[in-house]
């Protein structure tokens, strides 16, 4: 299919058509369980090509590069493919975007992403992960109520009309499960994990923690209305929390004026707390965001975006970086946050509200507002610590990052590698 498509695309060369195509050959195994019993197995084998065609045109003496996307599905006839290309090429002529270059055949990637999945194979990986999950299902009062396992292997090839032709294999594991605990009533604790390796220790540890929280949930009291205590954010919400800096240092956000960040800015302003460092690492072990090339075929390498709270450089793809004359980093999904030195135990010497899990913690990168319903946490009033549930936390990052503290302890959640806990002040708690 790929060769036939390239042959057809080459026929448009004399009309000025340029292209990029991404071929994805995906193979996935899925298993679904209720308690410990298998409910269903599924298999998936798909193959498709995402095509982008480009047309350079002039208007009032200025050059523009228009583009339009299309999908080439297996079994399409030559006539169907030509129709798709004609339609996209025509549309691209009206997409008036400032001129930018296409990626050129260039350097090899600077690193390598390794995963244990290819050695084991998709089915063996699933079997080992399932064992790791259910090894924790050993409690009288609690059990796994259901689980879902997805192990995905995708062969990816990126080709463009400028000579780029690169390929790599991507792996992805998704696990979703809930734990029930009966102590008086019955409560649920739900989590979803994403990773790119057969890391049974990591998954086993997280399920163990899930049971641990579930066992304490029946004891939880409604979150009190306290607005003058330190709030300790923990868990996956931190990836969302730091997303504010990631999104706003992206070349696309700055070009479209959605972000007001500029290189050299002290992002935390006058800072009495910890100044953070943000690096983007395309080869972060175990992350589904790890890859040697972005979708343009740009080879990726580790970059430091924010150093001690100062914006050192933007990150972004070839198009938006070239608009801003910024170095082209390519699109990198993995974030590594450093800069914390305070042990969590020290953060807990004064009254605090430690938030362990949320329904759906959200950071609005445009406004800096963040909020989430509290599913579980601990409140320490200076004398005793009690588990809490319900209510919400809300605030604005611009009002908290001047004195936030990052823990010395670290945690990793798929494409996040950073402090395990962040202490923030000046947030609002809607409790009882």
């Amino acid at each position: 299919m790929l060769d036939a498509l390239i042959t057809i695309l080459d026929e448009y060369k004399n009309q000025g058509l340029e292209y990029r195509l991404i071929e994805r050959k995906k193979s996935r195994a899925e298993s679904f369980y209720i308690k410990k019993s298998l409910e269903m197995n599924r298999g998936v084998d798909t193959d498709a090509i995402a095509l982008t065609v480009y047309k350079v045109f002039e208007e009032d003496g200025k050059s523009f590069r228009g583009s339009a996307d299309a999908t080439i599905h297996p079994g399409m006839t030559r006539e169907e493919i030509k129709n798709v290309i004609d339609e996209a090429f025509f549309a691209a002529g009206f997409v008036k975007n400032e001129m930018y270059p296409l990626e050129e055949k260039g350097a090899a990637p600077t690193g390598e992403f390794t995963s244990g999945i290819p050695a084991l194979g998709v089915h063996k990986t699933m079997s080992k992960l399932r064992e790791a999950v259910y090894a924790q299902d050993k409690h009288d009062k609690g059990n796994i109520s259901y689980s879902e396992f997805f192990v995905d292997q995708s062969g990816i090839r990126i080709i463009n009309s400028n000579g780029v032709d690169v390929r790599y294999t991507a792996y992805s594991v998704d696990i979703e499960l809930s734990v029930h605990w009966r102590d008086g009533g019955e409560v649920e604790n739900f989590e979803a994990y994403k990773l790119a390796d057969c890391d049974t220790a990591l998954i086993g540890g997280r399920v163990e923690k899930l049971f641990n929280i579930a066992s304490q949930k029946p004891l939880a009291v409604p979150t009190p209305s306290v607005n003058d205590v330190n709030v300790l954010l923990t868990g996956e919400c931190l990836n969302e929390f730091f997303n504010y800096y990631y999104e706003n240092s992206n070349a696309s956000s700055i070009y479209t004026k959605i972000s007001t960040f500029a290189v050299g800015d002290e992002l935390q302003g006058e800072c009495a707390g910890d100044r953070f460092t943000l690096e983007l690492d395309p080869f972060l072990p175990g992350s589904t965001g790890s890859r040697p090339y972005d979708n343009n075929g740009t080879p990726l390498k580790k970059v430091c975006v924010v150093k001690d709270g100062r914006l050192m450089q933007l990150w972004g793809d070839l198009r938006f970086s070239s608009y801003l004359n910024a170095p082209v980093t390519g699109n990198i999904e993995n974030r590594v946050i450093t800069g914390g030195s305070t042990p969590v135990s020290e953060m807990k010497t004064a009254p605090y509200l430690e938030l362990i899990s949320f329904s759906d913690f959200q950071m609005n990168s445009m406004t800096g507002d963040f909020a989430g319903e509290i599913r579980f946490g601990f409140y320490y009033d200076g004398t005793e610590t009690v588990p809490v549930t319900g209510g919400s936390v809300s605030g604005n990052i611009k009002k908290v990052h001047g004195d936030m503290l990052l823990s010395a302890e670290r945690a990793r959640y798929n494409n996040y590698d950073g402090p395990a806990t962040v202490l923030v002040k000046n947030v609002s708690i809607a409790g009882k």
Partner: protein
Amino acid sequence: MKVPVSDFLASQKPEIKRLVGLLENQFAYVSVLGTDVSGKSFTVRDKSSSVSNIPLEERGFVARVYTNGMYYEYSFNNLPPGGADKLAETIVENAKKSAEMAADIIRYPLIEEESATISYHGEVAILPNSMASAEKLARLRAINEKAHNLCDVLVDLIVTCTTAAVSKVFISSKKDLEQNYIISEAAIVAVVRRDDNTRYFYTSCSGLKGLEILDELESKTAGCVENAVKLLDAKPMQAGEYDVICGPDAVGIIAHEAFGHGVEMDMFVKNRAKAVEYLGKPVASKHVTMHDGAKSASHAASYLFDDEGTLGTDTVIIKDGILQTGISDLLSALKLGETPTGNGRRESFARKAYTRMSNTLIRPGNDKLDDMISSLKHGFLIESAESGMEDPKDWGIQCMFTSAREIIDGKLTGNLYAPVIMTGYVPELLSNITMVSREEDGFELTGAGGCGKGYKEWVKVSCGGPYIKTKARLG
């Protein structure tokens, strides 16, 4: 204009039927769902524009077979002429391996189908392909320019229009179903800034429409920009419990998160739904009647049959405050001994079918909106929803809203508070509903965006209702 059939599915149908025939020699139940969803998303911003693929795009098949008391599924998108034989071999081999994989399995009954051969073609005023890309982009640019003429603090005005031509066929030994319809959605995001304060307002339109949706979008431009500018003066919400009036958009998300997810019957099978203990019991005030179904409304999630070949229905979930029943996919209904409601939906042919909502709504009541507002001593009117999260086992709820308008002594003060997070215990929130507005005061569904199950499996849904008065915890 009648929505045409997919040429791809029409050409593949004989081979699909041959595949079903080959598999029937090996399995007691066989079905194949074929999908072809195509379209484009057009976007115009101040400094860029794009023509891109739509999130709903898919073209492929999923075969379901019954063996050893369980169902196995295989998703694929390559069915060359004469390819049914090889494919049948793959499916037989995989299904047999699957059945041998685990000693401990959940056994499901065999699906018993009634014969049906139905073909459905939706209608829209303007078919997406009848307008050239140049004109679509020009219409969106005109909205962008109109907005800029109205406002001098606009940082970016994002206008999008997405059309999806949905074609699906479902073939089993007794069923030959086909449906073709178009879903469109269009939206404006106005981003405004004053000093360091950035705010935005989002407005959308959606439904079983074609490009006539662009006229509707144009009419919303001025309101969207005006609302965004007002947000620049919004105050932060003081956390607390308040009397609130929720508009159709907010009511939709409350209904969806509060009791839509809570009555998805695959959650009953997994013991994940508290609702199962409350069937036939009060869960809301007597003013609340709630529906869900492909036939509950004509909107973005209306279809003839779901992704398991079950015809869509209209389910009354809550009637006068009493929980009646849940909604179901085919396998969950079989397991529970219920009649399936036609809510078995897949993110795409490549994903599993789960019980999913379609069009979820609270029915209008008899109260006048003006009376509802004047009944508040101190509270808020909440109209624009952003997102929500379900908690079917423990009945918590989280809803995010763009803003809330302050009401003091029965009058809107003009003060705006943003952003707003609403949390609470579902039965408490619904039991506190004391007034429900009349249809003529505003009864609307919205179907832009999508709904996930947990954090994945996105499908198109719509939700809405009238205005309701309740008590809620805001932050």
